[in-house]
């Protein structure tokens, strides 16, 4: 347990329907003093933070997953239910439930309040976004509302400075009083009939205490007429996705190059400063290169999440899912899976992290499973190396570049196999012959709050560095160990890697890889290539004793052209469509799914596909005379 929980005597929880502005309120109340982790054993995010009241009380606040009821229809909602009921073993039972409601949209929230009252815990209703409600001319009689519901009511504006003062003052008052639960827990899951009764009661309270808006929201309707238009809407969505893809792919590149060269320079400096030997190599190629390989993902993650957080706060994500639902649904993918999958063309790491926008666990797992099949940017150096060395630079019909065509075919193969794998997974392994229902609220458009987006970005970055970073780093050190231990004997000839454990593994794999037309040099290069797919280029250069590392791609290409048959080269390309060789992706999958199981499944199925694809390619090519 952290020191935060020791100091805080009070434990409050935020509950609320989706789109109630709960997370914005959480960010406003706790600022950067928050911790994001996973609940043990599940993919559900646990967000906790500390807030300080005007009189100096420290309160631990947890932001529970949004829900319409306590029925617990998904793992997220089960967490909310269990914490609220005090059944969750690793979570302190909250002293006070803050039920957050969008003041402009109270029907579902008041029904939730009515249900929460049965739990018999202290409860306060927070009418968030009260500024928007006032602007629309919605009169809310707070005293009447409080009297009808039998719970205290307070207003807030999470996205405004000072918008939570009243709430904090009320929290202080409550904290000063008695915090024992006021009643018995008589909660049971509501039946359809009870839901109807509760909704009618909520509607009655609204009719009694809330006036009809004098200036209803017309902006969202007019914006939707364009953004949800069957043609214009799809076109705008494509534009948004294009800009996002460009940003993740191209804008991040200069920063990533800067980080890479920075760590390279640091490595060289360490190399020069230290005496030659194993320790020098460990610091340069293990520690510094390992830390570098973690940090280098940050620009892409930050840019991608900047887009995701803004689109989410804006209210566009639900609209995009609406437009994409039928298109993605055909392959058994969720309407929201397009952002993670698109990002995976740049890199599967931010893509897998972005699957957090999908709330259904099964949909999320399927997306995580196929995300690494999208042709990530790390495959491009491998593809271009082999294509330029083996595929003639000729033009078909005078204008179609054969090399470009092969590149396109590799991308298409990746996408097709991702769709096929998701289809098979859904229908044969997760036993979902029916697509789960797609029902979601399309919230009114709102301008994103800079503060809330900044906090969101900060916690994502911190979480990536702390959680995925440690695993990625340890894998990098392990790969360094395999590639550089044991050291070559005195007076040995050839590159040092040929004497290492990696070479022994490569040799041992030789009989298995021979049917693919892979020689032992490829087997050896595949081991350091686990660090990242593009590392295989430099590794091939090393085993073929080409000096100059990454910059020497042309010489490496010439070496390969003289040593490999066309069939081997094609088999290598087919292998890299599927190749699971990316330790960072595997580490990320382990972190995001909360265990080794899905990581092992991903590695296994990708390896099997890579092997079969390379085997078929090699043998067909040999049969056609390319051996």
């Amino acid at each position, binding site marked *: 347990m952290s020191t935060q929980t020791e100091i805080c005597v009070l434990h409050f929880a935020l509950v609320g329907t989706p789109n109630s502005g709960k997370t914005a309120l959480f960010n406003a109340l706790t600022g950067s003093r928050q911790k994001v982790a996973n609940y043990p054993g599940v993919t559900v995010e646990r967000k906790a933070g500390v807030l300080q009241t005007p009189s100096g009380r420290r309160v631990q606040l947890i932001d529970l997953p949004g829900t*319409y*009821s306590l*029925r617990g*229809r998904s793992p997220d909602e089960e967490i909310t239910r269990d914490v609220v009921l005090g059944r969750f073993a690793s979570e302190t039972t909250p002293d006070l439930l803050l039920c957050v409601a969008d003041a*402009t*949209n109270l*029907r*579902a929230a008041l*029904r939730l309040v009515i249900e929460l009252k049965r739990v018999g815990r202290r409860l306060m209703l927070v009418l968030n976004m009260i500024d928007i409600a006032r602007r629309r001319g919605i009169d809310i009689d707070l005293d009447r509302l409080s009297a009808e519901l039998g719970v205290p009511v307070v207003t807030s504006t999470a996205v405004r400075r000072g918008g939570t003062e009243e709430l904090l003052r009320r929290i202080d008052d409550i904290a000063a009083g008695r915090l024992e639960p006021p009643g018995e827990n008589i909660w049971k899951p*509501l039946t*359809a009939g009870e*839901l*109807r009764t509760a*909704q*009618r009661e909520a509607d009655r309270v609204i009719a009694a205490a809330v006036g009809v*808006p004098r200036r*209803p929201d017309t902006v*969202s*309707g007019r914006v*939707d*007429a364009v953004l*949800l*238009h*069957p*043609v214009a*809407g*799809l076109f705008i969505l494509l534009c948004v996705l294009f800009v996002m893809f460009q940003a993740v792919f191209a804008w991040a590149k200069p920063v990533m190059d800067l980080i890479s060269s920075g760590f390279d320079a640091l490595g060289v400096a360490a190399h020069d400063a230290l005496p030659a030997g194993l320790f020098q190599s460990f610091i340069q190629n293990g520690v510094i290169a390992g830390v570098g390989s973690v940090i280098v993902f940050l620009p892409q993650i930050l840019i991608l999440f900047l887009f995701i957080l803004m689109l989410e706060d804006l209210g566009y994500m*639900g609209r995009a*899912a*609406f*437009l994409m*639902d*039928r*298109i993605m649904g055909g392959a058994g993918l969720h309407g929201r899976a397009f952002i993670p999958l698109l990002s995976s063309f740049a890199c599967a790491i931010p893509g897998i992290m972005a699957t957090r926008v999908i709330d259904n666990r099964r949909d999320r797992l399927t997306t995580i499973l196929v995300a690494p099949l999208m042709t990530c940017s790390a495959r491009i150096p491998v593809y271009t190396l082999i294509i330029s060395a083996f595929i003639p630079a000729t033009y078909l019909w005078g204008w179609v570049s054969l090399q470009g065509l092969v590149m396109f075919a590799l991308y298409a193969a990746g996408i097709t196999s991702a769709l096929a794998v998701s289809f098979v997974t859904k229908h044969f392994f997760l036993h*979902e*012959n*029916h*697509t*789960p*229902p*797609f*029902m*979601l*609220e*399309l*919230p009114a458009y709102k301008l994103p709050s800079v503060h809330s987006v900044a906090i969101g970005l900060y916690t994502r970055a911190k979480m990536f560095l702390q959680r995925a970073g440690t695993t990625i780093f340890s894998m990098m050190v392990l790969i360094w160990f395999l590639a550089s231990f044991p050291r070559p004997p005195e007076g040995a000839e050839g590159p040092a890697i040929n004497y290492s454990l990696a070479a022994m593994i490569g040799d041992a794999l030789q009989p298995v890889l021979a049917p693919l037309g892979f020689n032992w040099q490829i087997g050896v290069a595949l081991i350091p290539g686990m660090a990242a797919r593009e590392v295989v280029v430099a590794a091939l250069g090393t085993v073929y004793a080409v000096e100059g590392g990454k910059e020497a791609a042309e010489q490496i290409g010439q070496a390969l052209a003289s040593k490999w048959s066309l069939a081997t080269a094609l088999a290598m390309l087919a292998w890299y469509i599927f190749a699971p060789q990316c330790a960072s992706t595997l580490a990320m999958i382990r972190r995001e799914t909360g265990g080794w199981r899905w990581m092992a499944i991903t590695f296994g199925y990708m390896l099997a596909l890579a092997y079969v694809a390379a085997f078929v390619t090699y043998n067909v090519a040999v049969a056609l005379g390319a051996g």
Partner: protein
Amino acid sequence: MTDTVASTAPCMPLGQATRGFSGRISAIHVGDDVHGLAAAEIESRLLELGFVEGAEIKILHEGPVGRDPIAVRINSTTIALRRREAMAILVTSLDAPL
């Protein structure tokens, strides 16, 4: 006026209505075997999103492929759902403006 229209107008599933349709919910009735979930679960989810008997609704938008899903205005909220699930919502037309 509205009540007479509601009582005389025939019921139809919301899933068959087109863009611009406005009406009142007369019943929620989930058929079996067409959904991935139990009928009671679908019914509860619809109720939780505010689809209760008597509520007024309007279809605002239709999806780009096969006019599916649909976006439905219900009181002050907009809900997106597939036509398949919307078949469970029985509605009567409210052609006369309120």
